[in-house]
């Protein structure tokens, strides 16, 4: 086949388009962070998950070690059952604890996993028992007001 100038220009155009797609995929959509690592599933029950969503990160010491797979409501215990997939290369002690945290003031919520001291490690299908619910702003405010009221009624009126 005869190679012409047009071939070069068309190749240039297609390359520009491909570079744009790659830029969008790698720099913006963070394709590389989609991990194809092997994972194992662990679940936990929370009293309140706040704004936690499926696909939220599970972090330990700030490093992403897994993702939230599924969130369901358990109508036996009236708690939220959160299933997460932890990467197989990371092992955690059986008595590790989970916390729902927020990245930044308005950021997404994620799960923080804190290692315990047990000799045995978490196995697939295990349930993490020690969990800490999300901080709900309304509860915080009502608690604050309640304490304030208790303080002022306890002490002698100042005026």
């Amino acid at each position: 086949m005869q190679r012409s100038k047009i071939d070069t220009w068309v190749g240039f155009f297609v390359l520009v388009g491909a570079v744009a797609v790659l830029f969008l995929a790698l720099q913006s959509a963070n394709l590389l962070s989609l991990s194809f690592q092997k994972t194992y599933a662990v679940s936990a029950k929370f009293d309140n998950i706040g704004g936690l969503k499926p696909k939220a990160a599970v972090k330990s010491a700030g490093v992403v070690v897994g993702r939230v797979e599924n969130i369901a409501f358990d109508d036996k215990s009236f708690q939220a059952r959160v299933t997460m997939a932890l990467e197989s290369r990371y092992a955690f002690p059986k008595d590790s604890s989970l916390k729902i945290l927020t990245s930044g003031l308005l950021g997404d919520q994620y799960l923080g996993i804190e290692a315990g001291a047990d000799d045995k490690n978490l196995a697939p299908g295990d349930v993490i028992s020690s969990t800490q619910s999300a901080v709900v702003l309304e509860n915080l405010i009502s608690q604050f007001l309640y304490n304030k009221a208790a303080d002022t009624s306890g002490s002698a009126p100042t005026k």
Partner: protein
Amino acid sequence: MSWYKPADVGFAVRAYLGDVGYAARLFMRLLQTVGYALRRNALVRDQIHFLGNYSLAIIGISGLFVGFVLSLQGYYILQRYGSAEALGLMVTLSLMRELGPVVTALLFAGRAGTALTAEIGLMKAGEQISVMEMMAVNPIERVLAARFWGGVIVMPLLAATFSAMGIVGGWVVGVLMIGVDGGAFWSQIQGGVDVFKDLGNGVVKSAVFGVAVTFIALLQGYNALATPEGVAKATTRTVVMASLTVLALDFVLTAMMFTI
């Protein structure tokens, strides 16, 4: 023609249905030319060069400026709520999901669609199409197929270029000029954009728009009256119909993709 006379209404409906049927048949025949386009890929290559390379400058520069403006406007709204770091995410999502495909399709209709219509209309006016038919060359394969597949291939690439340039533009204004933290700018983008949901759907949108705009341009050119006036009218109709179709399709696609 008056709307209260049943005969006139019936005639209008029949004529309209005839047009729709003709368009649908032409569309099906174009879809069947995949094999021909693959065999004669040099023809498609020439069209990619004509439609793509020459549109690259206008698409890139428009993308850059849309990114500039989005970033400027977005900053003043976001900083009011103390979340200027989310600027990058806002710019990227608006570009990937909506502005990239839609604005590219509108520009593509104006830049390349009109050229297609005028070219085919003038071919018809110069009786080149009739000559082809007389020589037993199928004009739908020889003339329309390469242009159709060229347009369909070019549109997603142009839309991706537009979005990428827009994000770079947003970064220039947001980070370099206004002084939003660069690390937060990119990390917010990477945390909030999904490869399949946002980027993938944007690419699907732009491909659909590519089919729609190119097909409308070819249909108008192929149907144009073989006079200077007819070609002029067909070119105008291409821009109007392609733009409206793109906007309507965008609403339907968005409703299907992002609300479920």
